[in-house]
Every structure is written in C-alpha cells, then in structure tokens.
C-alpha cells in the first residue's frame, strides 16, 4: 500500500505544480488583454489607473470611447478599415498565389541554381523589412508610386512571397512526387496537376501563409507611415497612432485601447474562419502519416 500512496502524492504534487505554472503563464497572457478591455470601457481621469484596473467599479464603465472611435474620429474608422482590408487582402491574395507558384517550383522542379535560390530567399528573409524602406521609397518615388494603393501593395506582397514561398516549399517537399506523377499519368498537364492536386493538398500551409500574409500589412506601421501621405489612404495602424498622438497633449487611454480592440476584431474573425487550416499548418510534421 505504501508505494502506491506515495505515487498518488507525487501525482498530486505534479498536478498542482503544473497548474501553478500554467496559471502564472495565463496571467501574463491574459492580463494585458484584460487591462485593455477595462481601460477601453473607462474614461479619463480614471482610465489606466492601477487601482481602477484591478478593481473596476461597474458604474464607472462606459462605452463612450467606442462611440468616439467608431463615429467621431477623422479619418473615420470605416475608411481606415477599408484601406487596411484593401492592403492586407491584396497582399495576402497576390502573395499567396505567387508563394504557391514559388514553393511548387522550388520543391518539384529541377533547374540549375535551385538551391542557391532557396538560400538566397532565406537570406533575404533574415533582413528586417524596415531596412528596405529607404530604397523602396527612393525607387517608388521615381516611379510615382508614393501615396498610392499599388505602391504599398507591391512591397507587402513581396514580403509575403519571401516568407510564404519557403513555407509552401517545405510543405510540398513532404508530399511524395508519386502523387503528382499519378496525376500526370491520369491525363493531366503539370498545370492541371498543380491546381487540382497540389493546391488542394497544400490547403493547410496555404491557410497559414494567407493568415501571415494578411497579418503583416494589417499591423504594419513603418511602411504605411512612410508611403502614405494623404489621410484618406491611411490604414488602421496609422489611425491608432493618430489617436495616440492627439493634439491635447494628454494620452487618452480610453480612446487608444478601444481603438486597439476594434482594430483586432477583423483579425480575430479571420483567425476563427481559417483556424482549422492555420492550426493544421502550425503543427505540420507532428501529425504526418
């Protein structure tokens, strides 16, 4: 009986220890979100004050910041959202298509310099994208693409291709050549085999790639700030900064946090729709076979 008892004790101890660790980790993950939510429901002067955040008085909570952010800011939230969706959506669509082609070519075609090309792309992805802003700006200024939609969609898409191309390539490497060859024997051209066999098989990684390609431009501040001069093309990230640096000189935490929340809602929605694919993409390799 004795050893059994001891084992039960150690099991309990382990369980408690792991729960303590997880609860602490959870606080770190959840508290900032909680902070933002509570602050967004508060107005000055109590917004952001620690005592209020830890023990909010329900009667002091109000939706007035949301009202301001959604309806009384200029440029309007809807205009900012529209621009963000245009930039992120285009970059995700174009980047994804090109990444699929790039990944397919790098994985399944034999051409001279293929390995070099793969290493070259990996090398490019090591540079922070901010490094490229100045050359891009000079280049696009000459081409007259500053302060235009297309001028920002190009670097966003390029960024998506660099990263997602490798992602797709690695995934396609794990798909046996046999399957594509079976499609060729079944009467398909390589193009048909690509669209009817390889693309459906790559949906998990393409979902992940789409999400990442969407997230990048959506949260980008540096490029948008440099490239977009007129406020009617501003994105949500620029709008957030604009609210933060209001001309009154005081930081209105209520406004900033409520803007942050409405800005993150589309991403949450996007994630929920593609969750199946994204999680599949993140756990690649773990569940093969």
């Amino acid at each position, binding site marked *: 009986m004795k050893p059994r008892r001891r084992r039960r004790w150690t099991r309990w101890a382990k369980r408690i220890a792991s729960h303590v660790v997880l609860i602490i980790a959870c606080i770190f993950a959840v508290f900032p979100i909680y902070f933002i939510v509570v602050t967004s429901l508060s107005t000055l002067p109590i917004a952001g004050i620690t005592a209020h955040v830890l023990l909010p008085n329900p009667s002091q909570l109000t939706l007035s910041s949301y009202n301001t952010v959604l309806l009384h800011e200029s440029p309007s939230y809807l205009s900012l959202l529209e621009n963000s969706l245009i930039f992120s959506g285009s970059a995700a669509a174009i980047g994804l298509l090109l990444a699929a082609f790039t990944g397919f070519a790098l994985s399944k075609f034999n051409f001279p310099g293929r390995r070099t090309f793969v290493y070259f792309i990996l090398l490019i992805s090591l540079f922070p994208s901010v490094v490229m802003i100045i050359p891009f700006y000079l280049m696009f200024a000459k081409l007259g693409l500053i302060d235009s939609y297309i001028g920002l969609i190009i670097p966003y898409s390029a960024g998506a291709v660099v990263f997602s191309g490798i992602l797709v390539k690695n995934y396609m490497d794990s798909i046996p050549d046999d399957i594509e060859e079976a499609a060729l024997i079944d*009467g398909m051209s390589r193009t048909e085999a690509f669209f009817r066999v390889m693309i459906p098989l790559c949906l998990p990684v393409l979902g992940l790639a789409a999400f990442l390609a969407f997230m990048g431009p959506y949260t980008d501040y540096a490029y948008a700030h440099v490239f977009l001069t007129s406020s009617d093309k501003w994105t949500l990230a620029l709008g957030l900064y604009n609210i933060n640096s209001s001309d009154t000189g005081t930081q209105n935490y209520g406004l900033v946090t409520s803007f942050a929340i409405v800005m993150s809602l589309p991403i949450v929605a996007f994630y929920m729709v593609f969750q199946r694919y994204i999680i599949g993409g993140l756990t690649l390799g773990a569940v093969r076979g």
Partner: protein
Amino acid sequence: MSGITLQNITKRFKTETAVDDVSLSIQDGEFVVILGASGSGKTTILRIIAGLEVQTTGHVFIGDVLVDDYEPRDRNIAMVFQSYALYPHLSAYDNIAFGLRVRRIPREDDPDRDRHLTHQEIDGKVRGVSQMLGIAEMLQKRPSELSGGQRQRVALARAIVRDPEAFLLDEPLSNLDAKIRSNARIELKRLHQRLRQTFVFVTHDQTEAMTLGDRLAIVNHGRLLQCDTPERTLSHPLNQFVASFVGSPEMVFLEGNVESTGGGFTFVKGPVRIPVRGTGSPGAVTIGLRPWDIRVEKASTPGTLSGRVTGVERLGSSDQLFLDVASPPGASPTTPAAPVSLRALVRAYDFDVGDGVFVGFDPDRALFFNAEGGRLESMSISSPLP
C-alpha cells in the same frame, strides 16, 4: 491495348548510367516482369515507358507509335506506384474517377470534336471496376481510412478504369503484409488473364517474378541481361548473374580451375576433381548447380563424394543442407586441400548436423561460367564422377 517496344534505351543521370542500351519487345497482352535488385535501373525503365523520365538516347514505341516526344498524359498508359500514390484528399471513388473527369473522348455526332465523359458514364465505369475488385463497399472512404490491401485495390481500380494501352506496375505488392501478398499475387495473375492487357511489372522479388511473369527481364547495373520465360531463365541462364539471381535457394557455385590432364581436361576445386570437355584451354571456370539437383545419400553409390552436414536450414516442406565435401572415396589427393562447401535441397528432417553423407549430382544439370560470369555453353561434364 498494345505492345511496347524499347529500342536501345540509355538513360544517364549526371555521372551515372541508370539504363544502359536496353532493347526489349513486349507483346500485346503479355505479362513481362522486370526483375532486378534495388538500384539496378528497373524502375527507371518503367518510368521511361510512362514518360515520367526522358531517355538520353533510344526510342520507345507503344503499339506502332513512336512516343519519345509524348507527355505521360498522351501515352494513355496506367501506372500503379509502389506507394499507390492515391490522392489523400479524395475519397476512393474520386480517386478512381479522377482520370476519367479530365479525359476527353471524340463526340459521337462529330468525331473531330471531343467531349468530357458524362456523369453517368463515369459512375458506371467506377462502379463496374469497383465491383470487379471487391471495393464497392468502401468507395466513400479516404485513403487514410483504408488498409494496405484496400489501397492497393483502389490504385489498381484507378488504373483499370481508364482502359489504358498498357499497365505499368512498380512493386505494387511490396508494401503488403506477407500474408495478403500471396493472395494479391494470385488475384493480379487472374486479373491479367481476365483483362488480357499488356502488363509490365517491376519487382526485386523473384517469387513474384516467377509466379506472375510470362517472361522475365532480368536487369543489373542498367543492363538487360536476359529476357525469357521463367522456366528458361532457370534452366538456361545466359550468365552467372541470372543464374544466381533466379531460383531459390540460390544456385551453388564452385569456383575452380580447369587443368590439362593426360588427353582431356579436369575441373579442380580443392579435393573435388571433375572430368570435363568442351574447353579449349585451361583456366578459371565456375560450375553452377541448383541445390535441388544435388543428391544427398546416406550410403555410398558410384559417382558420389563423401561429405558431412555442417548446417541445416528447415524451410518447412524441405531442408536446405550445408555440406562440406571432402575427397572422393578411394582417391588420394596429392595435396590435402580445404573441403568444398555445397548446399543441397532435400526432403525435410532426413538429415541432421554432423551426419556423414555421400553427395552426387546429375552431370547434365551442371552449368559452366567463365571468369567474367559468361555462360560456357559448350562445356559439360564428360563422365560420371570417379
């Protein structure tokens, strides 16, 4: 359906030659097995027929049509891959129907134009083939939900449903459990007898080759060494490689020398001396014997060598004996030599390790090879053993 002709096919990858000047003519409706060890180039030959690899030199004909410049899809051949290569995202039904959906056939009213198959036509074909292969009940399942044997049937169904010119099979049985493999073998043979189509089957397993093939094409280092019926490859191998590769248990080889003795020649290997004829000059010669052609007896009879059983491998219905053969009884070798090792296939449980035995063989069954492994057709044993 059509025959397939390979004309002086050579395939070189960067530095190595995978297929070396292979010419092979496969008859319409014939079942040809390409047999070789892994890396021998047998799969490359199949892929060249399919059009998945392009030969460096030489020509491929399907029927009478030169298909060197044809894409795989225009060759109208079907292939069953070792991995089956089913589309993982499609049900068994869709896997089988997939090729039919992209296929175009001439229109009845206007043969110059083509059309897709109708939904009913596809459904009819898929159900017909599935019925034939006994997979009608599992058509809605994904490949991951099927057993190995079922996947193999789906892969076969996908090939059959297209009614191709020829079937190419790349080790389709090697991923199956031993138990269902022999069943699958028989079913494949029956399928061929029923379809009467051209089958090209690649394998490294000689049992599969012997049981399935109308003819065996034995390949080594990219070269086609012999293409013959299973019986002929066993009884008349063209060289030592074929002799050792085909037949189980493997042929016994005695590597020795032919020496000039008096008026004739004698094969000498340790204490064993065998009078031979048909050679022009002395030199290194190898004698090959099938283990089942070697006679093992408990009592001495004329023409036997004395020996000892050093090992027994129980194969079930028969035993393979490992024997050390010493000098023939009565003979006194001038130089004592190490005993010669032989293997013999005998009835099960007749002998045990350590038994003293007498070994003989039918002189007509011995095959002779030169030092390069080439067959010496003219040589034979001139008289019974002393």
